[in-house]
């Protein structure tokens, strides 16, 4: 098979005759570049380049931030920082919900509920599917324990088989 492939390559790749020369050159270059990037002078040069870039763009970034902030105020729109602060608060709320979920788990355990039922076999749940996105999770095969609600967050499973009976 490899012979066939090699023959095929020879006919279809016009650069084949130069491959050995190319590889030899790349090997030499690779060794030289590894030495270069491992040197103190490379570290110094790359650090200086980054420093130069950050220093040069700082006034521009500052000016853009200021003008953008003013424009957003005029348009009565929240700034990026305000949206970020809001997102942080959402995360804190999520953590509180997770804490409550943990407490409910402990309570269920103390009440001596049955352990979760085994997973249904081989559900074809892939990333981006209804269950992955938290869309109508009850219509798809899913595991035990907590279930995802419409927002894909901590909606607990209530009423297992035993409870329903």
């Amino acid at each position: 098979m490899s012979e066939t492939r090699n023959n095929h390559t020879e006919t279809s790749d016009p650069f084949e005759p130069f491959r050995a020369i190319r590889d030899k050159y790349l090997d030499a270059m690779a060794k030289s570049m590894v030495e270069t990037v491992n040197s103190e002078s490379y570290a110094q040069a790359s650090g200086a380049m980054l420093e130069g870039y950050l220093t040069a763009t700082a006034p521009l970034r500052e000016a853009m931030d200021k003008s953008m902030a003013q424009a957003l105020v005029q348009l009565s729109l929240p700034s990026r920082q305000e949206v970020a602060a809001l997102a942080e608060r959402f995360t804190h709320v999520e953590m509180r919900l997770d804490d409550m979920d943990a407490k409910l788990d402990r309570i269920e355990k103390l009440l001596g509920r049955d352990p979760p039922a085994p997973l249904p076999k081989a559900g074809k749940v892939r990333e981006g599917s209804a269950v992955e996105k938290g869309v109508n999770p009850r219509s798809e095969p899913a595991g035990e324990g907590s279930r995802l609600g419409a927002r894909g967050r901590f909606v607990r499973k209530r009423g297992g088989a035993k409870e329903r009976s």
Partner: protein
Amino acid sequence: MDQAVVMDSAAGLAKRLQVFTRVVTTKAAIAQTPKELVWALNKAKLYRYTPVLPTEKRYRIPLLLIFAIMNRPSILDLRPGHSFVEFMVGQGYDVYLLDWGVPGLEDKNLKLDDYAIEYLPRAIRKMKAIAGVEEFSMLGWCIGAILTTIYAALRSEEGLRNLLLLTAPLDFSNRAGLTFARWTDEKYFDVDKVIEAFGNMPGEMIDYGAKALKPVENYIGNYCKLWDNLDDPRVVESWHAMNTWVTDNVPMAGGAYRQLIVELYRKNRLMKNELMVRGERVDLGKIRANLLTVIAEGDHITPPCQSESIMAKVGSEDKELYRIPGGHIGIMAGSAAPRTTWPHIEGWLSARSR
């Protein structure tokens, strides 16, 4: 030259260019093993892979996979037929994966502390509730190994039975052997200025840093390898999947990046048992879980010297250091992985998962 030969060469070249362009510019379908989202917090998501074996044939102890915070964890489930996750699920493990997600501006202050003892314990609690067991195994790879090590040291009483560390950058004492340490030395690199400018460390910069360690191989040799093997669909498919993963860069939360550079790369606090995480000192001696450390002998990102010394520091009685030829990613995602690394991990875990 015969006109037919010229035409044949031109047609062959055109076909090769077509395949090359398609593979380089499109995304392959990766991370295809069926899974279910079972928990989420902020950007972090915990997935459970759908078991393929009946309950009685499965291992009791679930396995949690933790990858780095600046790459997609899809490398653990690269493509059907060549996926560590698929392999472990097929062997009867109840496999969970914690995907850290992509940090936004609102996450710029997240530190290793948050990942290791805020997000991780919560995900573990949920996993244990779902699996209905108190014990579990955890595999940490790259920065994920730092997080799992911190967790294992600080939460040693929370049921961690088996700890697997893959190419774990834990010891930064050999500064001369670490190119990253040289580049991020305080003489040349102002980490605060970078974080102030970008908020989070941009994924492109992290990617550049990783690739610049071997620039010729990564920027030229990699494409030559594809060009030379365009006739071999297996190589093309594998290259395509790997390129899809490699080019999907994730930024690193600013706080975590700063901590990685200052407290680990510069001060080596974790290995000195000096790292403070939310007021608690991380003492590696408190790690009691069975430990398997996997070292890639040809790893230029995490050289073996960074992973070896933990063996003498941990309090685990059952511990093994496993060396394997290969690179940082290649040992788990390379073509030899299904014959070498995966069976070794599975064999080690198998004896400790009943």
